[in-house]
């Protein structure tokens, strides 16, 4: 078996979707063929998430504490995911709010239980070229971004339409309710979507910078997701000990898929990463490639 066989085997864990799952796309095509005006395509929610349309799992309903209660203190029972996430929200709220300059870059270093590690330099205001690992991603200026790493060399450095992707987010909700609605992305059917929300929370917590109120709202919103489990004594991807919050796997996932587990420091409730990744450095720098 060589690496090509390995890639093929890995790909085969994702099979064909049933025909009815593809029906909406077929409908959109037929509507276009009939010359009907198109719906604007749905906003790309750039998180790859859970499979939907399958029988929703029955999830245990967790008794919720008001998530905006602050000052949980030292007596938190680790066995309760709501209390852990509420404490994490409280910690996030106390972080000093130091907005970066628009021309700076968010530098994040992620260490993995299984290498390689990852470093990114993301433009704070989205207008400058970012660096992801060793690859450039064009910044968006006046609605146009240069393309890098194109398949066709003729397009290298040419411009495409864009919207700036800001690493420092000032556009996110600051209450648990509004944040939860944002994470579900207009999804009415919320049954069995915990795994999707786990990924969404991780995505906002690791390589983006949020204002303290949004950061707090993120964990307070997560506390309202049913079916979570708190795990004592886990380690993050760099081996740092902490308490874990497990988001159950969405129905319809591969039978061997593992749930995502977010890890928080057991004393301070600061977000550390997941059981296989660790955000070890997160700060602002002035130049791409610069390390603090």
């Amino acid at each position: 078996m060589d690496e090509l066989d390995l890639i093929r085997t890995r790909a085969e864990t994702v099979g064909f979707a049933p025909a009815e799952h593809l029906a909406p796309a077929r409908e959109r095509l037929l509507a276009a063929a009939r010359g009907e005006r198109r719906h604007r395509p749905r906003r790309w929610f750039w998180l790859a998430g859970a499979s939907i349309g399958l029988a929703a799992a029955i999830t245990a309903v967790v008794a919720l504490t008001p998530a905006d209660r602050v000052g949980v203190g030292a007596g938190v029972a680790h066995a309760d995911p709501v209390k852990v996430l509420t404490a994490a929200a409280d910690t996030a709220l106390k972080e000093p709010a130091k907005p970066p300059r628009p021309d700076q870059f968010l530098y994040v270093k992620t260490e993995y239980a299984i290498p390689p590690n990852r470093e990114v330099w993301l433009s704070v205001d989205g207008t400058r070229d970012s660096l992801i690992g060793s690859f450039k991603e064009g910044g968006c200026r006046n609605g146009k971004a240069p393309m890098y790493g194109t398949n066709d060399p003729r397009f290298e450095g040419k411009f495409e339409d864009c919207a700036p992707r800001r690493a420092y987010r000032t556009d996110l909700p600051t209450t648990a309710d509004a944040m939860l609605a944002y994470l579900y992305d207009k999804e009415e059917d919320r049954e069995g979507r915990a795994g999707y929300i786990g990924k969404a929370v991780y995505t906002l917590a690791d390589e983006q910078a949020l204002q303290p109120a949004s950061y707090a709202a993120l964990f307070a919103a997560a506390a309202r997701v049913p079916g979570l489990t708190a795990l004592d004594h886990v380690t993050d991807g760099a081996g740092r000990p902490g308490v874990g919050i497990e988001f159950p796997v969405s129905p319809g996932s591969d039978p061997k898929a593992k749930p995502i587990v977010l890890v928080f420091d057991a004393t301070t409730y600061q977000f550390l990463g997941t059981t296989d990744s660790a955000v070890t450095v997160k700060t602002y720098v002035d130049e791409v490639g610069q390390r603090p």
Partner: protein
Amino acid sequence: MTPEDTDADDDASVIARSRHEPSLFAVIFDRHSRHIHRYAARRLGPATADDVLADTFLIAFDKRAKFDPARSDARPWLYGIATNLISRQRRAEVRELKLRLAVGPPAADEGHADRVADQVTAQALATRLDRALAALRPRERDVLLLFAAEGLGYQDVAEALGIPVGTVKSRLNRARGRVRAELGAFDLVKETSGHG
């Protein structure tokens, strides 16, 4: 004229007829949509794949007048449109590769003495493979995945991406070299012998 009348026709002639009978383009959808959706799901996850599928066929429909009538099979062309859409989602793809918690190769036969150890190794190997794919140059990842995961030949990959066959081969070699270097800690032949 109904879609049933198209069974014996190749893609080029169906697409040619769809210029005057637009609804016939649904025949092209029915022939290839499963593969395009699966390709997008493998690269971006199932939720985003639905959008990629719909947008791929809307773009293909708009460009159907430009389809080369000498090509009997439209699938490489559709793979190319989907790849362009996926390339706009690079951050999402790399994130999906990072978050795809290891699902290893199928379990070894029951009774295999080291089955549990094998599974642990397989999971670690799968995770390392995902990390290696995430670290590739995007254009090399495109070639490698079309070739290895989707099973397109050199010529089809070249057609899909609009690049010469020689470029396909050199990118594939570079990508394979990088992945092998990342997997270096594993003896692939030894570690996977139990998984056939």
